[in-house]
C-alpha cells in the first residue's frame, strides 16, 4: 500500500487509490499516480459538482456547442458563431495576484482560440476584501489583467468589482473571453483519426505550475505561500504568436483539433482530447517534448503547467505544413506522439515505458463524491418597521455613490485597452458593453454579474437574481439575451452548509435560466474558497452573458442625452431593502430577504424595453441595480453629463420613502425619451402590462427632487469618482 503522505501530495484519498488499483488490477506507478491525482482533482474532475451541474439547461436553437468543450458556442446569424467561456483563477491570484490574474486571462483566451475563434473581448469579475487592506490584491490583479490583455491586443470591455469582508483571504478572479468564428470553421478538440500526429506548440515545458490543479482544490492555509511555485508565469507576447498561428492553422484543413494546455498540463489536454472520441487513445514520447530546463523527469513533463502551450492534432503526413505556419511565427513545435485506437494513454520516454492508463479512467474515473447539504442557519432577519426613516436622500446618495461597491470603475478600466479591434461600440462603464461584428450590423452585448450578498441571504433567490440582473444589463443596450457561461465560486463543499448553498444555487440558476430561455453553454466551478475552514466566501455564482442586437445602430447606452427628455422608471417598486447597499452603507448591516423576483414580470418588462428600443422610442436605458432608483438615475446623469429635475417623490403606502429611492426591486429600468415618443411608449407599456412612471425632465447640471434635495453634478461626480481612490 502506498503511504498516505504520497497520496496527500497528489491530493488523492485512500478510497480513490483503492478504486484506481481495482480498475488497473495493479498498483499505479509514481507518474501514473501523479497523472491521476491532477485529473481527479476537483478542478479537473468536478467530482463534487458534476451531479449538480447536470441539472442546468444547456440547449436552445442557437446553441452549436454546449458544455464539455474548451468553450461554448452559439449561432448569431450571418454565418457567425460567438464562442465564450468564463473561468476562475482564484487560488493563484490569492497567492500571487499579478501572475495569478494574468495567467487566468491567458488561460481563458486559449480556450476560445482552441475553438478556432478569434478572441474579441475580455471581461473580469473580481471580488476583494475591504479597502485599504486588500489594496495589494487589487493592485496586483488589475495590473496583471491589464498587462496580459493589453499586450496581446484583446480589449477588456467589462466585468465587475465588489468588496466584502468575506473575500479578504479569498479574492475571486473570474475571467471571461468572447470570440468569433465562422460557423463552418468552428473547431472541436477531439483526437480523431488513428495515426494522426500530436504536436505540441508554444512555450518550452518547464517545472512551473506542477500540481496547480491539485492546489486549486485545497483550502488556503498558512502554508499556501509555499505553493507559490504552483502558480504559473505568463508570457502574453508568446500567446499572441500562438493566437495568430492558430488563426492561420484554422484556415487549413491539415488540423483536426486544437486543445489548450491548462490545468494539469499535457496530461489533461491529451486525455481530454482523446476522451471526447469513443475508443481513442494516445501515445506520447516525453523525450520529444521541448524543455526549458535540464533534468526534468517524465513526471515533471506530464504535470507541468507551463503557460502558452497548445496541443494540435494534425493529419498524418501534413506535419510539415503545420510546422511552416509555426515557423513563420517563430514558435517551437514538435511532434510528440500520435492518436491510437486502444483507449489508452501510453507514455514512453524514448525506449522506456513510463505510464499506461485507460483514458476513461483519467477523464471519467474519479468516483463522484456523495456530499450532503444541510441548510445553513437563517441569516439575520430584517424588521423593516424598526428601520429609522430616511432623513436626507441627497446625503444618502452621496454616501452610496462613494461606497467602493458603487463608485466609478473608471480608475480601473482606464488601465485596460478597451478599444483595440475597432469593434467596441459600447465602452465599459454602463450596463453591458457591446462589440460590433465587423462586416455586419450585428452587435454582441457582453456582461458579467452577481450580487453575492443576495446569494448569502438566500442562495436560491440570489442565483435567480444574478441571472435576471445580467439579462437586464444586456436588455438595457437593446440586445436580446442569448446564452450564459457561469463561474460558480464556493467555499469547502465538504461542509454541509456549503454543499447546501451549491444545491440551492444550481436550482436557482436552472429555474431562472429556464424561465428566461437562457442555455448555459460553458462554465467552471471553483471550490475551497475558504482559509483554514474559516472566513468562507459568500456563494458567488458569477453569470457571464452574451446578447445579440441585429442592428447595432439601434443600441442604447445608459447616459441621458438630451435636455428636455422625459426620464421614466419602468417597472414597479416595493419595500425591497433586504440585502441592499443602502442597508449596508447607511445602517451598517447585511440582513433580510433579497428582493423578490417574479420571472414572468421580468420577462414582460424586458419585452417592453426591447420593443421600445427596436421601435427607436428610447434615447437611453439603464438597469436599476445596487443602490436602487436614485443611484441608477444619478449614473444616467453622470454618464450622459446631463442633469434631471424631478417633482418630489411621494410614495404611496405601503411603499417607504427609503425603498422608493434606494430599494433594489428587480425588473426595473431608468429610461429617457423625447416627449413625442411618450404616447407610443404608454400604449406599449399597457400592452405588456408593465407599470411606467415619470421621474422627471432631463436638463441642467444638477439632480433635483423638488423640496427634497438638489445636488450639483460636480458634487455627485466627486463622490462617485472618489470612491476607489
Amino acid at each position, binding site marked *: 500500500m502506498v503511504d498516505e503522505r504520497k497520496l496527500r501530495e497528489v491530493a488523492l484519498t485512500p478510497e480513490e487509490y483503492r478504486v484506481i488499483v481495482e480498475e488497473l488490477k495493479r498498483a499505479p506507478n509514481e507518474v501514473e499516480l501523479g497523472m491521476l491525482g491532477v485529473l481527479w482533482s476537483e478542478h479537473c474532475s468536478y467530482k463534487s459538482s458534476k451531479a449538480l451541474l447536470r441539472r442546468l439547461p444547456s440547449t436552445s436553437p442557437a446553441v452549436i456547442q454546449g458544455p464539455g468543450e474548451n468553450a461554448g458556442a452559439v449561432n448569431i446569424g450571418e454565418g457567425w458563431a460567438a464562442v465564450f467561456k468564463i473561468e476562475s483563477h482564484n487560488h493563484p491570484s490569492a497567492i500571487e495576484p499579478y501572475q495569478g490574474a494574468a495567467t487566468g486571462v491567458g488561460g481563458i483566451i486559449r480556450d476560445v482560440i482552441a475553438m478556432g475563434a478569434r478572441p474579441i473581448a475580455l471581461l473580469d469579475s473580481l471580488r476583494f476584501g475591504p479597502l485599504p487592506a486588500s489594496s495589494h490584491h487589487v493592485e496586483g490583479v488589475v495590473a496583471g489583467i491589464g498587462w496580459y490583455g493589453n499586450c496581446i491586443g484583446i480589449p477588456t470591455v467589462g466585468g465587475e468589482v465588489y468588496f466584502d469582508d468575506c473575500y479578504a483571504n479569498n479574492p475571486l478572479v473570474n475571467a471571461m473571453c468572447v470570440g468569433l468564428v465562422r460557423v463552418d470553421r468552428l473547431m472541436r478538440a477531439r483526437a480523431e483519426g488513428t495515426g494522426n500526429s500530436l504536436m505540441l506548440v508554444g512555450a518550452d515545458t518547464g517545472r512551473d505550475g506542477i500540481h496547480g490543479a491539485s492546489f486549486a482544490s485545497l483550502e488556503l492555509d498558512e502554508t499556501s505561500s509555499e505553493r507559490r511555485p504552483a502558480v504559473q508565469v505568463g508570457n*502574453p507576447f508568446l500567446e499572441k504568436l500562438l493566437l495568430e498561428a492558430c488563426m492561420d492553422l484554422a484556415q487549413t484543413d491539415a488540423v483536426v483539433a486544437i486543445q489548450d494546455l491548462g490545468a494539469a498540463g499535457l496530461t489533461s489536454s491529451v486525455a481530454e482530447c482523446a476522451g471526447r472520441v469513443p475508443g481513442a487513445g494516445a501515445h506520447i514520447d516525453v523525450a520529444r517534448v521541448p524543455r526549458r530546463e535540464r533534468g526534468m523527469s517524465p513526471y515533471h513533463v506530464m504535470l507541468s503547467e507551463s503557460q502558452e502551450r497548445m496541443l494540435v492534432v494534425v493529419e498524418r503526413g501534413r506535419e510539415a505544413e503545420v510546422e511552416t505556419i509555426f515557423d513563420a511565427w517563430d514558435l517551437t513545435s514538435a511532434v510528440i506522439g500520435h492518436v491510437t485506437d486502444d483507449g489508452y494513454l501510453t507514455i514512453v520516454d524514448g525506449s522506456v515505458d513510463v505510464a499506461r492508463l485507460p483514458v476513461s479512467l483519467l477523464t471519467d474515473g474519479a468516483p463522484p463524491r456523495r456530499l450532503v447539504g444541510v441548510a445553513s442557519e437563517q441569516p439575520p432577519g430584517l424588521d423593516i418597521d424598526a428601520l429609522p426613516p430616511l432623513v436626507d436622500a441627497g446625503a444618502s446618495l452621496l454616501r452610496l455613490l462613494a461606497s467602493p461597491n458603487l463608485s466609478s470603475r473608471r480608475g480601473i478600466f482606464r488601465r485596460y485597452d478597451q478599444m483595440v479591434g*475597432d469593434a467596441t461600440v459600447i465602452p465599459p462603464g454602463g450596463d453591458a458593453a457591446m462589440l460590433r461584428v465587423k462586416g455586419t450590423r450585428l452587435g454582441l452585448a457582453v456582461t458579467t454579474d452577481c450580487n453575492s450578498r443576495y446569494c448569502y441571504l438566500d442562495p436560491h433567490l440570489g442565483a435567480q437574481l444574478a441571472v435576471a440582473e445580467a439579462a437586464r444589463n444586456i436588455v438595457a443596450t437593446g440586445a436580446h439575451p442569448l446564452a450564459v457561461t457561469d463561474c460558480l465560486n464556493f467555499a469547502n463543499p465538504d461542509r454541509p452548509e456549503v454543499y447546501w448553498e451549491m444545491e440551492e444555487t444550481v436550482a436557482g440558476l436552472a429555474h431562472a435560466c429556464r424561465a428566461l430561455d437562457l442555455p448555459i453553454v460553458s462554465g467552471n466551478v471553483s471550490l475551497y474558497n475558504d482559509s483554514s475552514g474559516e472566513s468562507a466566501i459568500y456563494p458567488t455564482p458569477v453569470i457571464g452573458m452574451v446578447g445579440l442586437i441585429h442592428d447595432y445602430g439601434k443600441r442604447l447606452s445608459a447616459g441621458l442625452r438630451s435636455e428636455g427628455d422625459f426620464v421614466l422608471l419602468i417597472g414597479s417598486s416595493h419595500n425591497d431593502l433586504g440585502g441592499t447597499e443602502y442597508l449596508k452603507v447607511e445602517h451598517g448591516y447585511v440582513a433580510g430577504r433579497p428582493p423578490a423576483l417574479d420571472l414572468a414580470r421580468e420577462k414582460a418588462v424586458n419585452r417592453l424595453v426591447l420593443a421600445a428600443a427596436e421601435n427607436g422610442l428610447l434615447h437611453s436605458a439603464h438597469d436599476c441595480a445596487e443602490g436602487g432608483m436614485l443611484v441608477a438615475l444619478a449614473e444616467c446623469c453622470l454618464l450622459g453629463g446631463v442633469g434631471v429635475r424631478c417633482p418630489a417623490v411621494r410614495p404611496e403606502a405601503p411603499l417607504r420613502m427609503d425603498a422608493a429611492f434606494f430599494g433594489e426591486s428587480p425588473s426595473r429600468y431608468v429610461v429617457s425619451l423625447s416627449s413625442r415618443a411618450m404616447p407610443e411608449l404608454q400604449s406599449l407599456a399597457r400592452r405588456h402590462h408593465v407599470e411606467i412612471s415619470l421621474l422627471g425632465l432631463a436638463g441642467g447640471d444638477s439632480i433635483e427632487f423638488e423640496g427634497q434635495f438638489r445636488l450639483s453634478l460636480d458634487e455627485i461626480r466627486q463622490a462617485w469618482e472618489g470612491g476607489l481612490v
Partner: protein
Amino acid sequence: MKFGVVVFPGTWSDRDCGWVIDQVLGAELQYLWHKDADLKGSDCVILPGGFAYGDYLRTGAIARFAPVMEKIEEFADRGGLVWGICNGFQILCEAGLLPGALIRNASLEYRCQWTNLAVERTDLQFTSKCTEREVIRVPISHGEGNYFADPATLSRLEQRGQVVFRYCDDTGHVTNNANPNGSMHNIAGIVNARGNVLGMMPHPERCAEAELGGTDGLKLFRSVAESAMKVLVS
C-alpha cells in the same frame, strides 16, 4: 495611394489600421511582414501599435533591427511618408528616425482614454485636412507614452515647429490636467525636420467611424490619401 502596414509578431493595431484604410477610406492596402525587406511599392508606410516583440527589454528596442526597418529607413531618407502610431512612434525613436524617447507614463499605469489634441501643423501631408489650431479627439492606449527629450532637442523641436500634436483640454488650452502621461511640453506627436516622418502616441485608427466614438482620426488618413492624389495630379 498605397498604404503599407507593417506587421511585427506582437503588433495588434495592424488590422485596425487596415480596416480604416481598406473599409472606411477605400484606399489600397498591403501588409508588410517584419521579416521581409520589401515595402512592395508603398507610398505611405504605417508602423502600427502593439508590442512588436513583446517589448520586454524596452518598447521598440528590438523592432528597430527587423529586416523591414532597414528598408523603411531608406524610404524615409528618400522622402517617403512614414507614420508611426503608438508602438510605431516608440520604434521610430529607437531607430533614430525621430528624436527623443517614450518613457513610462508618469502615473506608472497604463492609460486607455480619449484625449484632446491641439493640431499645430496643418501644412504636413499627414494633417492637411485639419484646420489651423483645430482640437481633435483621439484615444490613447499605452503604458510608455511619456515623451522625453534633452533640453537642446526639445528647444530645437519647438523652434522648428516639429511638434504636430499636443495634449490639450477641449477648448485647446495646453494644461497639466490635459496631459495623460507626463509628456514634456504635452507632446503627443512630432515630425522630423523634413516633414515626412510622423510619430504619435494617440490612435487615429480607433476614431475613424462615428460608432466608435468619433471620426477625427479619419482626417489624418484622408490627409495622407489626398496628399498623394495631389502629387499624382501635379
